[in-house]
């Protein structure tokens, strides 16, 4: 056990910190996290720069164009990006979810076609999993894929899709056999978002912004060669995607929280510094942040030793989301009478945080997952 950076880690951290200092324009720092819509050209340009500097796909194997670096480098990357308050790579769905799924289940042609372009941000990806009638219950997806010769004809609607409005490709879970048993009728497709019959509509959320989209599919033809895995095995392929979503999520979440706790400390120093009650609550949030940070490191330690993320990581998203909600309230409270003003940060953070216990696995589903898969309790359904 050694909580200090190794020589290699320290060198990587210093190099990245210097690179961010030199390359990130000041006015692009301090964005509000997930709420960026990446409509302008900067998102792709910035992502391209990250790629050219070697920071995209740090943990991807070298044979697929990645850096083949240990997971700790990915952790350092998130920490330093948060420290600089730098905007993320717009290809997060490709890098974190679609890419690893293609590596695990894709054909050589699919790997050739997409992996290098995901890294370079030439291809932006989105995710078509949730539907109006299938949120937590992914196996209830009703977007249909009907086989006609060399194509699947796709009809239906997906929802809560980040980046769909700028995406080139979508990882899509479809129902190819409505008569099959549950989990056995799903097929996983790679869909070109520029195909005829696709319509993307912004989905306005409670903050007033439209960070997410709805995607409508109307007789969209998808070549059979774009299928990931076998027909009817979409559930297993989707589980690979979600495993990777969780694998690297913890560090990204904690990095964002680090920024918020930093702002909370600022407000506390300015506004509520003499009030012991307020000081104690601020300290509790700082402690919880450290607890999440070191739980990430423990999960990373398990991952580096065994190749499998440790079970302790499953608690991180659950606790992170609840903490983010709690601390945004505290931030406003510390502002006292001015807490009623829309200051552009805390008001937005408080509203946005309500989504945290819903997106990427609702807290109810996450508690079920912990109970059943980690604690070994009998299934509740």
């Amino acid at each position: 056990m050694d909580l200090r950076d190794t020589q290699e880690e320290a060198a990587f951290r210093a190099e990245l910190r210097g690179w961010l200092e030199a390359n990130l324009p000041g006015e692009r720092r301090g964005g509000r996290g997930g709420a960026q819509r990446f409509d302008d050209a900067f998102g792709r340009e910035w992502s391209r720069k990250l790629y050219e500097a070697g920071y995209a796909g740090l943990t991807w194997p070298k044979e697929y164009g990645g850096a083949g670096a240990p997971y700790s480098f990915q952790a350092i990357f998130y920490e330093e990006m948060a420290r600089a308050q730098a905007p993320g790579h717009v290809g997060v769905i490709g890098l974190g979810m679609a890419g690893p799924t293609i590596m695990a289940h894709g054909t050589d042609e699919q790997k050739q076609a997409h992996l290098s372009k995901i890294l370079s941000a030439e291809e932006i990806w989105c995710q078509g999993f949730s539907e109006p009638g299938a949120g937590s219950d992914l196996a209830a997806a009703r977007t249909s894929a009907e086989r006609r010769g060399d194509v699947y004809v796709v009809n239906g609607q997906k929802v809560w899709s980040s980046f769909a409005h700028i995406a080139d490709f979508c990882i899509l879970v479809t129902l190819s056999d409505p008569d099959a048993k549950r989990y056995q009728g799903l097929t996983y497709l790679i869909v070109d978002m520029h195909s005829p019959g696709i319509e993307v509509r912004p989905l306005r959320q409670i903050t007033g912004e439209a960070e997410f989209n709805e995607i409508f599919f109307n007789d969209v033809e998808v070549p059979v060669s774009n299928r990931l895995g076998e027909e009817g095995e979409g559930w297993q392929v989707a589980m690979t995607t979600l495993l990777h979503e969780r694998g690297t999520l913890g560090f990204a979440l904690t990095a964002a929280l680090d920024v918020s706790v930093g702002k909370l400390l600022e407000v506390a120093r300015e506004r509520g510094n003499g009030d012991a009650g307020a000081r104690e609550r601020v300290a509790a949030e700082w402690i919880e942040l450290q607890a999440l940070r070191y739980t990430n490191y423990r999960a990373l330690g398990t991952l580096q030793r065994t190749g499998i993320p440790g079970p302790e990581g499953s608690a991180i998203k659950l606790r992170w989301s609840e903490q983010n909600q709690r601390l945004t309230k505290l931030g406003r409270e510390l502002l006292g009478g001015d807490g009623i003003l829309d200051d552009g940060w805390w008001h937005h953070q408080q509203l946005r945080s309500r989504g945290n216990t819903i997106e990427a696995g609702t807290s109810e589903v996450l508690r079920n997952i912990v109970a059943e898969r980690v604690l070994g309790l009998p299934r509740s359904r």
Partner: protein
Amino acid sequence: MDFAFNEDQLELKRQARAWLGERYPLDREWDAAQDDRWAELAELGWLGVSVAEDQGGVGLGFLEEAILLEELGYALYPGPYLGTIGFALAALGPEDRTAVAAGATKWSAEVNGLVPWLGSVDKVVDMDGNAQDARGEELASVDPSRPLGRLERGNGTPLPGRRDVPRARAAMAAEAVGIAQRVLELGIEHAKTREQFGKPIGVYQAVSHQLADTYADVELARSLAYWAAWCVAEDDEQATVAAAAAKAFAAEAAVRACERSIQVHGGTGFTWEHPLHRFYKRALWLEGFGSRPSELRLEVADAVLGVPVGV
């Protein structure tokens, strides 16, 4: 960056779990006097873990002691290991350390005017860092297996080391993690086997989600406890704030874990016969001994916000 135990440390943890499980089972005679097996602990090397080899110890460090403390909590071990190793050892000079490693002297320390195990240890590190003979008035404690007393002071003998508060707090955090882990496991076992309305009660989310919440609490507490233990072992500059954070969080997590486990056990959990109340009392002791969680959080606030001006 490597936040994991090495193979030797994991082996120590496994050995401790097995050894303690055999000697301190859940169906022991709880209300009878319990043997602290001090000579056996010395034989195992547990009393000299961080004592230098040329002083008769094993020459390891506080990380290994924290591993043992977690397992001693898990087993609800009754003896003064925490007092001797967690509270006193850092203050002791070479001769006293050798005696500790050999199992010849049991120690405790005076904290906020109270001395744990006053009636059963030999020596006490008093509030000023002097050694005193263990003598004084014994008091009832929230945890009867961990008695308290008020020291009757003599002149005392100055000790060469320091009262290491972060070390003591990190030790209590490790023990609290062990307590929380044990009552979580008891709750899981009960929820898997107890049937109501024709099903094991663990299928009901009102039950299973309480255990999932405890799991999250325990894992976060564990991370803080190991972080604090590493900082203490390495004499890291963050040791003070890490130990305060870990003790506050882990003690509260252990209390909550016990309370949820009692609830999950239903009426059984409320009986004297079931051992849950004994773990609960130990958790309450850990929460209250030294500084309470709210006081510790104010210390953390001083560290991260700066001490307020004019207060």
